């Protein structure tokens, strides 16, 4: 069932790469302007020994950044839910804060936090915090009041209502937020590294670009995409594992 679904985009991708390869060949585009897919593959193969450390550094920043965003995002969502007053005060600010270009903040973070891992982690956290916080917050407000009434009528305590109703009800929303965050996170780490780093995919791209090694830049871009897809699929797998009822419901409902 899943194979034909993926087959069509795969064919489109292969055709696209073939046209690209052919166009570069026929038009004799210089390699430093636009390398052919075969040249990108070659660049990837040549640099494979270096990439482990770069990918490792970037993924470390991603892991810490998502971890911090998870804790702060869920905590903020819970606090906003407990206090309607805080919600009215803070929720609009949260949305407005998203209009601040994080790209522009990155150089400032270097000034404030130096060249270590901290500014990169902060950039990842800034990218990931918002979708997690807002989605979880929306999920918590979406709990059906009838369910809470039922629990109260059964004499449920406040922690029981949270653990057995509100958090499970918010879980699908939380996972949508986490999937968006996971997709953004690797790009966030790369942006953080652009401004200054010793290791990581971002600084690898920057150095390759400065040396007109365009094929290496493309290779790093592809790796960044693949890592994002991998993270997305990981979250998706966790989601399926922890919420089997949710997928059953979507398949079962007509």
């Amino acid at each position, binding site marked *: 069932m899943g194979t034909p679904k993926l087959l069509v985009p795969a064919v489109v991708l292969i055709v696209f790469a073939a046209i690209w390869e052919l166009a570069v060949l026929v038009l004799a585009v210089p390699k430093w302007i636009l390398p052919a897919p075969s040249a990108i593959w070659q660049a990837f193969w040549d640099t494979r020994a270096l990439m482990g450390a770069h990918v490792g550094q970037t993924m470390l920043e991603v892991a810490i950044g998502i971890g911090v965003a998870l804790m702060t995002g869920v905590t903020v969502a819970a606090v906003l839910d407990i206090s309607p007053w805080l919600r009215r005060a803070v929720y609009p600010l949260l949305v407005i804060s998203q209009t601040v270009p994080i790209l522009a903040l990155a150089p400032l973070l270097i000034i404030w936090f130096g060249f270590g891992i901290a500014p990169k982690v902060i950039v990842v956290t800034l990218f990931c915090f918002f979708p997690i916080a807002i989605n979880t917050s929306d999920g918590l407000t979406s709990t*059906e009041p*009838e*369910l809470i*009434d*039922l*629990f*109260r*009528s*059964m*004499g*449920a305590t406040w922690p*029981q209502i949270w653990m*057995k*109703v509100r958090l*499970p009800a918010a*879980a699908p929303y939380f996972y949508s937020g986490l999937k968006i965050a996971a997709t953004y996170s690797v790009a966030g780490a790369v942006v953080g590294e652009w401004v200054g780093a010793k290791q990581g995919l971002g600084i690898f791209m920057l150095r390759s670009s400065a040396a007109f090694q365009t094929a290496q830049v493309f290779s790093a871009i592809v790796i960044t995409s693949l890592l994002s897809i991998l993270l997305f699929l990981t979250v998706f797998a966790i989601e399926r594992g922890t*919420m*089997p*009822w*949710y997928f*059953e*419901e979507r398949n*079962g*409902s007509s």
Partner: protein
Amino acid sequence: MTLLTVDSLSKTFGSGSRRGTHSEVEAVIDLTFKVEEGEFLTIIGPSGCGKSTLLRLLAGLVQPDSGQIHLKGQTLPDPSDRQGRFGFMPQRDTLLPWRTVLENVILGVELAGGSRDAAREEARQLLPLFGLDGFENNWPSTLSGGMRQRAALLRTFLAGYDILLLDEPFGALDALTRRMLQQWLLGVRTRFSKTILFITHDVDEALLLGDRMLVFSPRPGRITADLKIDLPHPRDENTILEPEFLALKRNALAHLKL
């Protein structure tokens, strides 16, 4: 023995001003009645007449403006006194979608801190009676509407309360399924002599199932009639065609002014 006494219960919603407009809705006025142990009391009235408000007052979800509620001779003034004492089944399907049927039906015992294993065992034995045999590990979304309501009823039954408060449990089902569930509930009733308050807007249902029927006026809800339904048991689908039934129905409709 009198199990429940409701004494001059009144409730008005929306008292106080919001943005300058006083919008008060009198939900129920001066409700007074008693329920005997083991009695099946049906409550009927036009929609919006405060039937559901009565159940929410009893279940401890709403606080009355005046009046008192006594259960087993004990006065229950605060909502927290009443919470966990009545088996309240809300109108809408309230099975938890993230729990299997079995884990759903033991919820009451679990919240009260009872043994979950013992509750599961008891639930397994009752599943066939509730038409859920073989569905204990299903997600609620895979069940039909009638099965979901039976599962919700089993949850309310298992929680072991003295009185069940059922708010139009069959209201959202199609006519055929509703008929089947009415017959089924009559059968279950002969095995468990639970005390039940059963809200409905269907006169046939109220008369077929109940031992006694309260008729509510349109909003604000008052009790306009307290009718004894002395139809013999066992009742079945033909009961609603008997002359005695039709006489009771005529009387009930006259009180409902329909």
